[in-house]
């Protein structure tokens, strides 16, 4: 078996999601190679070479890869894929964007968001917002897979000495152009890899009120998340959304505040180790998955909780 992993990076740094994909690849077994396609992506490639368990790093450095446009990336991955039994990408928005395009060009099915590897051709994946787990077997010659990062332990970022090789210098397919991006800036840990997540829902009432959660998050060194209702209401940006169609998180501690607990929200957080729910409605479904439920008005409880925790640093 030979596994090719499509790295998630921003040229300067390799994203932790890549390490989780390597974690999944180790479960499949065989030689692991990582593709770093970017523009000026040498630093990311060098980081990839240090990952424990990785044999080769393939680098495609080209202006057409400055942004991960699927139209430009897919032909490159397809060209390389012939030499591999598995092609993996983390189930991030860029992995989800490019991998099905690769699969179709290879004329193979894709196995989306695997959460377990049963054997090199058999995988477990959630369906129906995680309310069922399907075990599926692929009959295709190349397995195209996206990996749910929270389901696989990260490979060690240090300790490897992979060979760095340059592959085809790539091209611009001329179908799409990057125009601009508006990335949310935050000093906080990244939502999908944070150890603690504090999320707010419609019950927060306004974007202004999210300051209450930020104060709590500061004490806990936590990332801040939200329900879809809070994002739709414009309280916080779209990339805060946790759930079936947002981000999947599995921190050690998840605190849901003013969130009712719709199945689509639970889909994104019910694998957290410890769940706390704060809600004024004691019948709220969120209490069914919470290890610790506190019935009360968040505007009273959250400041109290913040005050009860020591200041960081």
């Amino acid at each position, binding site marked *: 078996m030979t596994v090719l992993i499509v790295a998630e990076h921003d040229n300067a740094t390799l994203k932790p999601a890549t390490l989780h994909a390597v974690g999944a690849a180790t479960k499949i077994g065989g030689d692991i190679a990582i593709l770093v396609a970017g523009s000026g992506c040498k630093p990311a490639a060098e980081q990839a070479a240090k990952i424990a368990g990785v044999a080769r790093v393939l680098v495609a450095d080209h202006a057409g890869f400055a942004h991960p446009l*699927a*139209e430009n990336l*897919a032909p490159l991955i397809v060209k390389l894929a012939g030499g591999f039994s598995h092609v993996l990408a983390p189930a*991030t*928005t*860029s992995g*989800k*964007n*490019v*991998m*099905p*395009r690769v*699969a*179709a060009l290879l*004329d*193979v*099915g*894709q196995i*989306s*968001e695997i959460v377990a590897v049963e054997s090199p051709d*058999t995988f477990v994946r*959630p*369906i*129906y*917002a995680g*309310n*069922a*787990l*399907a*075990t*599926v*077997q*692929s*009959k295709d010659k190349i397995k195209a897979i996206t990996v749910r990062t929270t389901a696989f332990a990260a490979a060690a970022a240090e300790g490897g000495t992979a060979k760095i090789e340059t592959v085809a210098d790539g091209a611009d397919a001329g*179908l*799409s*152009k*990057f*125009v*601009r*991006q*508006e*990335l*949310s800036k935050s000093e906080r840990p990244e939502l999908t890899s944070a150890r*603690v997540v504090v999320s707010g829902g419609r019950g927060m009432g306004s974007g202004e009120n999210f300051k209450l959660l930020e104060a709590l998050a500061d004490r806990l060194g936590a990332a801040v998340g939200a329900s*879809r209702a809070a994002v*739709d209401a414009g309280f916080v*940006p*779209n*990339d805060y959304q946790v759930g*079936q*169609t947002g981000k999947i998180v599995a921190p050690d501690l998840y605190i849901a505040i003013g969130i009712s607990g719709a199945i689509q929200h639970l889909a994104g957080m019910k694998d957290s180790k*410890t769940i706390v729910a704060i809600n004024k409605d004691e019948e709220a479904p969120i209490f069914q998955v919470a*290890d*610790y*439920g*506190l019935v*009360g008005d968040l505007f009273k409880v959250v400041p*109290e909780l913040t005050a*009860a925790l020591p200041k960081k640093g």
Partner: protein
Amino acid sequence: MKVLVAVKRVVDFNVKIRVKADKTGVETANVKMSMNPFDEIGIEEAVRLKEKGTASEIIAVSMGPQGAQETIRTALAMGADRGIHVLTDAELQPLAVAKLLKAIIDKEKPRLVILGKQAIDDDCNQTGQMLAALLGWPQGTFASKVTPTADTAEVTREVDGGLETVELKLPAVITTDLRLNEPRYASLPNIMKAKKKPIEQIAPDALGVDPAPRLVTLKVEEPPKRKSGVKVKDVVDLVDKLKNEAKVI
């Protein structure tokens, strides 16, 4: 321009699904079915483009058993002009759906094709990207804003870090995200009118596509249940439990 929208019939998002006792799948008999929520957003977007004069005709396509007709009717009631129903009782996986859609698109030649970013039953999030690949077209996935001009479409995409805007050459495939728009309810007069709009029915082999599944589902199971937790009486109690019992702070 002609716009084609793919609409899938799925178990309604409000239904709490049950896994079948024999582990072959999920109970779908006597369960409320609806149009996939992302596809409602797709139809709404097409209808708005028509109201603005950008779209000339809207074709709604659904694939699956006889019941898929109902989903097409809903699309017609929302404002689509005509429907195409690929009738089959066989399991259709994303690659097969993409190939069938391509065959229809080769004939209909729309300038814009809209799909949902994900079907809420299989949660695959694949079909739009696969279709774009087979057509050799650009793809604007997870779209929260779409502005087509004569030759291009500017698409704002919801990505992990925030928002990204790309410019695509037309024809192109778009997949919808939740915040693209808020779909309308079909009015009673429009529901009546929709009954007279045409729906063409085709079989997969008439489109020259082998829709055989590539993945075999060996079993479907319920996820492990979380054991039920406790209610704490106040913040002091909560902090104590988090420190000394869960040991997470």
